[in-house]
């Protein structure tokens, strides 16, 4: 009953507030509570950990709630409104818009604010902090007219800010008070390695340098004055010297706060008022605040648990850190400074390669206590759980950090106890992961599925290699080899097969199976080989050497339907069609009595064509200027578009033109699975482009490119690959993206699953496609150019070739006799298949017998 429902107010919609709300929904807290979430920032929660990538990918890609609201009607999200007052007696929160919210339970997730040292001039124009998307937008604006930038703070956040300034093209200085960079996380030698990396990128590092004032010129910041050192000139100054809990609301309401700031909370994250809870950076469990997202997530889960009457408790957090700063891997975990009595250090340093690795081990050399990794943090996912689980180190622990130490990785995951936390972001143990693959009820079949179901590896991703290893080891142990073979005929993955075909220049299945397979193939490998040959050679799918490899749809250039008839879909690029052509389609459908339906891809599907009718139908369509729509192929289907700026009063770009151009560019492109595209002329997204394998959405400045979306059984929203592109760059990125997919995806793996399967996911795709990290860009573009140059309409080519047409008959020896199994009834004024009764024998009234045409008569 409604009056029994209570109200839960969440103040703050950052990463932790969002996680709390998600968990409240998932764990059923919304069955008893209405939830109101109030966020001060103008947009819903976004990935602040990845803030540095904002300039590359834009705000949309960072959003944790792209839909802008939760998929639960009992949760209301209000953004752009700040909580300004708390009345604990009345249990109300007053908001900056003048309204008031009553609560039964209140969760504070107000986060932290950057600490700005109170030096003279710290508030001059030209001084910034680095915390929100708005901060970054302001920095970008100021950087436009500036040459030099300086960051105060050489810690984790300071280096991220320096990265941002360097990305904006500023000559960048980092000013750090401590004698080394990242003083909290790494030791002197690690800091020195990091410094060399950063200096090699052209940044200037000042350590042991204390900022005494901001230099003023013409009422603006012009540089930094340093104690005992020369001043630094800079028009942009970013303070990134630490954070302070935003606990003002709690302080004024008289809640207890910790000595160094933060709402004092107990193990359940409950404040001194039993109806007020605090989580994330604004909270201080046992007096200590945690400036990392993982402990915040844990606190969020603990409070949801407490509100459900559970026993969850927050008893401290693993402060291990792994991140990539300015392209340099840095990780710090456990007792990084060997503070434990008797602790020993094992160090591997390669100054040339810029790698520094240190392990801190117990005095008996048996336990790993902590470590520092700079330049190569690939061992982090393995080492960190060894610290938390306290397992015994192998005989030669230095093997864990030496470059050729791969072999020891296996034993290390084996030795990990089940309770070892593998994913510290989401608190997933080895036992949890093994349970996902070993359970009887819907077990996970691979590491990607485990990540999806358990969240292990879904936040920072650093533990993904370990998750993968655990899953593979499990399957190997139970004798279930994770067999990546295409089928019994080829012990290769599709990607390997693709490479084999390319390297040897094969053009025939016979040569491929003789050289690299066994037997004579099957319905799995033959179409896969056909697709690979088509992608590489772009020949006709019905050519002699490839005809029998095709699935029936490709074999008859039409889509088989349940009664053995086919449907026909002419290409209508971008969904644009002249009335004359529309009439032709109508006439063909009428004359051949075809069931007619509009598809989701903005074209028209004509059903019920018998095999022997297909050539005549296509003769009419080709003569009227139509070409194959490839609805039957694992290939580009359509590029859907909205009407765009030509007609629409909201449109900002000509989406129809771009959709037509893209559809014509990629038509006929054979791929591991079907491909769909979409182009929307403005942010209203009427073309539903983000439900496509590639989606383009117009912006004022150009196009945003989204990739790896799909509808269907497992819908996925496409994610932003790159923003504000001009058309030429957009096409270049798309060429690369599609060819990279075609080369490396598994058979029948759509783009969304493919991206998820890559180590590094979308970031990896961006490295390859946008940054050209593999140096493949030109090759991929050339491969696409070859496809575009050699495209031809395969239906027209079929009509021109009697040999290909010969197969479009009902019966080889009676080509004029329709297959009697096919019959129709009428429904809603159109034909539909009649229900089959079983095999049909033709009656004596129908003439059959001696072969006609290409039959036996000599």
């Amino acid at each position: 009953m409604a009056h029994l429902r209570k109200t839960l107010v969440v103040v703050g919609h950052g990463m932790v507030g969002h996680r709390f709300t998600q968990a409240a929904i998932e764990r059923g807290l919304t069955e008893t509570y209405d939830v109101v979430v109030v966020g001060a920032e103008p947009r819903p929660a976004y990935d602040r950990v990845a803030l540095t990538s904002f300039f590359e990918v834009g705000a949309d890609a960072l959003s944790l709630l792209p839909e802008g609201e939760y998929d639960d009607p009992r949760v209301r999200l209000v953004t752009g409104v700040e909580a300004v007052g708390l009345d604990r007696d009345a249990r109300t929160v007053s908001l900056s818009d003048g309204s008031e919210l009553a609560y039964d339970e209140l969760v504070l997730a107000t986060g932290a604010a950057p600490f700005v040292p109170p030096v003279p001039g710290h508030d001059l124009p030209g001084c910034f902090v680095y915390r929100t998307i708005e901060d970054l937008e302001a920095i970008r604006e100021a950087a436009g007219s500036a040459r030099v930038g300086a960051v105060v703070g050489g810690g984790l956040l300071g280096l991220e800010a320096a990265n941002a300034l360097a990305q904006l093209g500023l000559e960048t200085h980092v000013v750090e008070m401590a004698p080394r960079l990242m003083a909290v996380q790494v030791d002197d030698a690690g800091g020195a390695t990091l410094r060399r990396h950063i200096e090699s990128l052209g940044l200037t590092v000042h350590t042991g340098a204390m900022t005494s004032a901001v230099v003023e010129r013409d009422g603006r910041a012009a540089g930094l004055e340093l104690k005992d050192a020369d001043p630094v000139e800079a028009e942009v100054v970013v303070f990134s010297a630490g954070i302070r809990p935003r606990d003002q609301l709690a302080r004024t309401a008289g809640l207890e706060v910790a000595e160094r700031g933060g709402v004092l909370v107990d193990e359940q994250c409950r404040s001194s008022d039993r109806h007020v809870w605090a989580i994330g950076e604004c909270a201080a469990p046992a007096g200590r605040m945690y400036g990392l997202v993982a402990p915040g997530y844990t606190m969020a889960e603990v409070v949801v648990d407490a509100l459900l009457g559970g026993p969850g408790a927050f008893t401290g957090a693993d402060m291990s850190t792994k991140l990539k700063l300015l392209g340099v891997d840095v990780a710090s975990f456990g007792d990084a400074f060997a503070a434990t009595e008797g602790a020993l250090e094992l160090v591997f340093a390669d100054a040339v390669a810029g790698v520094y690795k240190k392990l801190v081990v117990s005095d008996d050399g048996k336990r790993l206590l902590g470590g520092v990794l700079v330049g190569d943090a690939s061992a982090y996912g393995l080492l960190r759980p060894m610290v938390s689980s306290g397992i015994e180190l192998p005989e030669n622990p230095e093997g864990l950090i030496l470059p050729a130490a791969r072999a020891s990785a296996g034993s290390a995951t084996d030795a990990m106890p089940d309770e070892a936390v593998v994913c510290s972001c989401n608190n997933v143990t080895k036992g949890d992961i093994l349970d996902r693959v070993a359970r009887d009820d819907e077990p996970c079949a691979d590491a990607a599925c485990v990540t999806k179901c358990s969240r292990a590896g879904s936040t920072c991703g650093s533990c993904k290699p370990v998750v993968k290893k655990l899953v593979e080891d499990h399957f190997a142990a139970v004798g279930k080899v994770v067999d990546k073979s295409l089928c019994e005929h080829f012990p290769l993955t599709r990607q390997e097969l693709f490479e084999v075909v390319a390297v040897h220049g094969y053009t025939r299945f016979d040569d491929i199976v003789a050289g690299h397979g066994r037997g004579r193939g099957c319905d799995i490998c033959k179409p896969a080989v056909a697709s690979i040959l088509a992608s590489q050679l772009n020949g006709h799918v019905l050519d002699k050497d490839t005809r029998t490899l095709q699935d029936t749809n490709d074999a008859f250039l039409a889509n088989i339907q349940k009664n053995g008839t086919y449907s026909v879909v002419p290409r209508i690029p971008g969904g644009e069609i002249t009335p004359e052509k529309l009439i032709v389609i109508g006439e063909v459908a009428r004359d051949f009595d075809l069931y007619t339906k509009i598809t989701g891809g903005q074209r028209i599907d004509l059903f019920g064509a018998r095999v022997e009718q297909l050539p005549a139908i296509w003769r009419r369509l080709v003569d009227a200027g139509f070409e194959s729509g490839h609805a039957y192929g694992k290939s580009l289907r359509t590029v859907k578009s909205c009407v765009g700026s030509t007609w629409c009063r909201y449109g900002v770009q000509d989406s129809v033109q771009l959709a037509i151009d893209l559809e014509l560019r990629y038509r006929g492109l054979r791929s591991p699975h079907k491909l769909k595209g979409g182009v929307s002329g403005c942010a209203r997204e009427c073309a539903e482009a983000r439900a496509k394998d590639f989606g383009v959405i117009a912006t004022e400045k150009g196009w945003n490119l989204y990739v790896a979306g799909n509808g269907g059984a497992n819908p996925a929203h496409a994610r932003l690959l790159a923003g504000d592109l001009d058309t030429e760059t957009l096409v270049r990125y798309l060429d690369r993206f599609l060819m990279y997919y075609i080369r490396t995806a598994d058979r029948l793996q759509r783009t969304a699953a493919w991206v998820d399967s890559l180590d590094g996911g979308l970031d990896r795709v961006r490295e390859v496609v946008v940054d050209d990290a593999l140096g493949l860009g030109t090759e991929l573009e050339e491969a696409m150019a070859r496809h575009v140059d050699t495209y031809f309409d395969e239906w027209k080519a079929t009509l021109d070739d009697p040999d290909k047409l010969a197969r479009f008959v009902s019966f080889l020896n009676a080509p004029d006799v329709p297959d009697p199994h096919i019959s129709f009834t009428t429904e809603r004024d159109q034909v539909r298949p009649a229900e089959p009764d079983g095999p049909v024998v033709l009656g004596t009234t129908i003439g059959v017998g001696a072969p006609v045409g290409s039959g036996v008569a000599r």
Partner: protein
Amino acid sequence: MSAGEATAVDLLGAPEDARTWEPVCRLHDLEVEGGAAVLVRGEAVAVFRTHDDRVFALSNYDPYARASVLSRGIVGTKGGAGNGAGEERPFVASPMHKQAFDLRTGQCLDDATVRVPAYAVRVADGTVLVGPLREHTDGAAQGASAEAADEGG
């Protein structure tokens, strides 16, 4: 009506005539590892030619899809040397839902209880002839060897 058609129609009513062999096409009309539908005594029959030039005939009717489509399936092999136990079995995969049928016997390889009718086949002078239905016990049935019989074709 042509004489040929009349002959075929005459065959329909007489059981003893069902044992006769009906020419359905030339061997070279069949693609290697391909299939084609032919009409034999009023029934839709799928004839297949394998990589080693043997010819097989099954009912064209797919009992799962309940449609006359088997001739349009992909032809290949299962098992055999290097591929686990057993001999190499030539098969066709239904174009509808991919169930595999042994070309020699019509036995469904995914379900021991399902079998489609298989016909005797031979190749003479380059002409493919479809004969009577095979008995179910004829498990080791071999297709007609075209190599031997295709002289003069």
